[in-house]
């Protein structure tokens, strides 16, 4: 029982991930889409823990489920979202396009993975992505990219503030005086 625990957990969280990502794209209510993405991110982070990437798993949980998806929830709940009204011909065309893209992508994935498995059978290594090991590499070999991401975040903040200011000023103009 204990010996089979990792593979049981893998199949459990894999099924959860697939179901949640299906409901991200299929659920009609945008609120349910966002909540399904929370479940998907949670199961993805559990898979990361199964792969012994502990630090990345917890960062994913904190940043995604904690911050990004809450932002999504705020936006979804602030805006009143009307249901999509497409003509049936448009809908049929979109559905056909989506099925075509999905079949194309998944078949190419299956083909690539099959050929890869035939080519070499790698065994799992014994690396463990703890905070210590990841931090050592992050602050030695990857110090420059790490510092550059702080600039990226700064630029993102500037962009958001300027966008919000533009929205505020145009909102004032639209007010009847």
């Amino acid at each position, binding site marked *: 029982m204990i010996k089979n625990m990792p593979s049981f957990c893998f199949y459990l969280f894999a099924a959860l991930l697939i179901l949640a990502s299906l409901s991200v794209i299929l659920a009609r209510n945008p609120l349910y889409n966002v909540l399904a993405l929370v479940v998907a991110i949670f199961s993805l982070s559990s898979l990361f823990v199964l792969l012994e990437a502990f630090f990345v798993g917890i960062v994913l949980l904190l940043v995604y489920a904690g911050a990004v998806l809450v932002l999504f929830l705020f936006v979804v709940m602030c805006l009143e979202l009307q249901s999509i009204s497409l003509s049936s011909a448009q809908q049929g065309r979109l559905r056909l396009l989506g099925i075509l893209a999905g079949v194309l992508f998944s078949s190419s994935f299956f083909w690539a993975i099959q050929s890869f498995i035939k080519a070499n059978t790698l065994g799992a290594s014994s*690396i463990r992505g703890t905070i210590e090991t990841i931090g050592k590499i992050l602050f030695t070999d990857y110090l420059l990219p790490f510092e550059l991401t702080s600039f990226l975040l700064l630029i993102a903040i500037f962009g958001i503030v300027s966008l919000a200011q533009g929205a505020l000023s145009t909102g004032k103009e639209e007010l009847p005086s």
Partner: protein
Amino acid sequence: MIPLGAYLLLSGLVFSIGIIGVVTSRQVIKVLLSLELLLAACNLSFVTFSKFNGDYTGQLIVFFVILVAAAEVAIGLAIVVLMYRHLSTLQADELRTMKW
């Protein structure tokens, strides 16, 4: 032990689901959520290869991807809110002009 192929298959499936979502949905928020699914699938295969190659670089790349995705989502949602204020709709088909 779970084989490499199982993880890659899962990642490919989630990526395909995300592609279907990006192509078929016409609501901007749904497109953004599907993009998050694409990023999640790529993160999963990065961590898998990191584990099976015995190299930490894949996990570091995932760390950077998460940072960039956070910035992308913040700006994307700001643009979505702006779009709702100007057009009072969230359908991507309504965005026909480059400038308002």
